[in-house]
């Protein structure tokens, strides 16, 4: 594997910020050799992708003979943020996934994302791995912009995830990595799974199987090994229901993440530690699969508690 720097900047006091890429490639390249880029750590508090890339890198090191395409790994886009538990780019407080495509004339975060986009450009496929944030836990899922779904949905189904969420085009999301790369012609998928500041090993291994499955089907690895490909739920055939906190307090879970639930099941309570009272009890507005559940217990009015994928509103 070759390791190169795609961006570097000398920090003010005796330290260098570098964004690194690891590349696996076949012994011989052909004109139709495919290239896949795996990106993670755009948000400094999301670490699940680091683990997935570790697993993938480890697998490729042990199976170098299978490599028939180019695999580029970018585990830590916001390297400074990851090492300092900072979601955005430190000091600038910028969400890097709202700063694309950036430019050489932009401020430092804009220069960094520009360097990433330019480096990934030309890949056939890109996978951007996120792990929600510190507040919410997500089952392994793929987020797809409807605009690009004709080309990305078939790939998403191979990634061994539990849920595919196809969302409408939103202007503000044009500043994301996935939109930028899809616009540049790279089929880009966003994975959300797990929770911030944690490694959920079972999810990491599940996604590893999916990535290997996708790479095999695209001819990027050539192996007889079979990889799991589970059948995901798709938002095309149902609705997503949001449960937001109606009050401030401490959220206490009553249900397990990723559970199949019935309409009216109790998801949790909002309690007041001082008075010992329950402010609110939260019920499922629909039956279905609970694919998002709040992990961080302090809530304000409006804080997201859970998301359920269920039957469409008309049938509920």
């Amino acid at each position, binding site marked *: 594997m070759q390791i190169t720097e795609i961006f570097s900047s*000398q920090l003010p006091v005796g330290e260098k910020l570098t964004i690194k890429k690891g590349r696996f490639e076949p012994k011989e390249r052909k004109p139709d050799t495919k290239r896949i880029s795996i990106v993670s750590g755009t948000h400094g508090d999301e670490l699940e992708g680091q683990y997935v890339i570790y697993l993938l890198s480890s697998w490729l090191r042990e199976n170098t003979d299978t490599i028939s395409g180019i695999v580029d790994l970018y585990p830590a886009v916001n390297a400074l943020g990851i090492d300092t538990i900072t979601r955005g780019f430190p000091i600038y407080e910028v969400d890097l996934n709202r700063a694309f495509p950036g430019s050489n004339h932009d401020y430092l975060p804009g220069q960094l994302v520009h360097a990433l986009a330019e480096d990934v450009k030309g890949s056939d496929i890109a996978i951007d791995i996120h792990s929600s944030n510190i507040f919410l836990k997500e089952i392994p899922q793929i987020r797809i912009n409807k605009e690009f779904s004709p080309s990305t949905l078939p790939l998403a189904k191979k990634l061994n995830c539990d849920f595919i969420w196809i969302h409408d085009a939103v202007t*503000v999301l044009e500043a994301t990595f996935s939109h930028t790369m899809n616009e540049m012609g790279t089929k880009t998928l966003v994975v959300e799974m797990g929770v911030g500041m944690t490694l959920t090993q079972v999810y990491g291994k599940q996604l590893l199987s999916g990535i290997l499955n996708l790479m095999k089907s695209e001819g990027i690895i050539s192996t007889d090994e079979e990889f799991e490909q589970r059948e995901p739920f798709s938002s095309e055939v149902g609705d997503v229901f949001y449960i937001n906190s109606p009050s401030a307090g401490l959220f206490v879970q009553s249900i397990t993440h990723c559970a199949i639930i019935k309409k009216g099941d109790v998801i949790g309570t909002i309690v007041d530690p001082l008075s010992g009272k329950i402010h609110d009890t939260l019920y499922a507005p629909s039956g279905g699969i609970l694919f998002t559940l709040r992990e961080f217990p302090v809530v*304000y009015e409006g804080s997201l508690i859970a998301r359920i994928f269920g039957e469409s509103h008309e049938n509920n």
Partner: protein
Amino acid sequence: MKTIEILRIDSLNRSPLIAEGYLFEGSDPTAPSVAIVGAMEGETILPLYTASKLVDFLRHSLDDESKIVGNILVIPSVNHYALNINQRFWPLDKTDINTMFPGYGEGETTQRIAKKLFDALQGYTHGIILETREGISTCIPYIKLFESGYEDLKSAKKFGYRLIHHKSLRPTDTVSLQYNWQLWGTKAYSIICPSDTNIDLNTSNEVFDGIINFLSKNKIIQYKVLSGYESTIVKNRDIEIIKTSKSGIFIPTKKIGTTIKKDEMIGKVIHALEGKVTHRIFSPCDGLIACAYKNGLIFENAVAFRVIKSG
């Protein structure tokens, strides 16, 4: 004057956040009206100070109540929670209220805050948002107007600031208050204030006088003012971006607001451990320093100055 509760957000342990507006009802119901929004972020001291100073001015400095002709709503702070702990964004999830418009009443906390604020801001002829620059820079006071198709450059000149930045619209700007306010029929303007954390009275007077100019020239108040500048409209192509090739200790040798000549030294970078000058920054053009990096430590390739080109 009436005090209006714009929004209330409860917290687990902190006292409730109650954002209030100060409504000054004008003597002429047919006159143009204005709403002014102060601090939406926590590190916006000058917007907070300017808005609160305006409340005091409207209450005490006009000798006759009838001199307030059109309705004026001033909301000095929306985000007390961030201000009180010196954080920039919403303290729990670090989201920026000014990227949540038009808001959503059933959504996340800052979407709900944006919705309540936006509802209270409807129906005004003009809207003024007091902001600071994003990133690590400070600037002279200027007007930022997006190229949205709804902007009113002619009215923006009535503030009398030196510059109006007529800025191309980015995707993230479509969820800002200015853009959405314009979309909903109010002529909205952002005043970009210096992002100093201390109050400089000369600068704050400049920001304040611009607002009074605007209110007076639009006949929202009757108050004799001295004219400001004949504002220059600046497009992105008129701005020279000057970066540092070295990181280290940054020493600007020219202040923002200074007119400079081509090849004039405007700053330098010092090696943080050895003290030697590693980089001298020279202006590539004649112009005006509109913005400068504000921290003492600077990154490599960071934008040190933005100069408005002249000549």
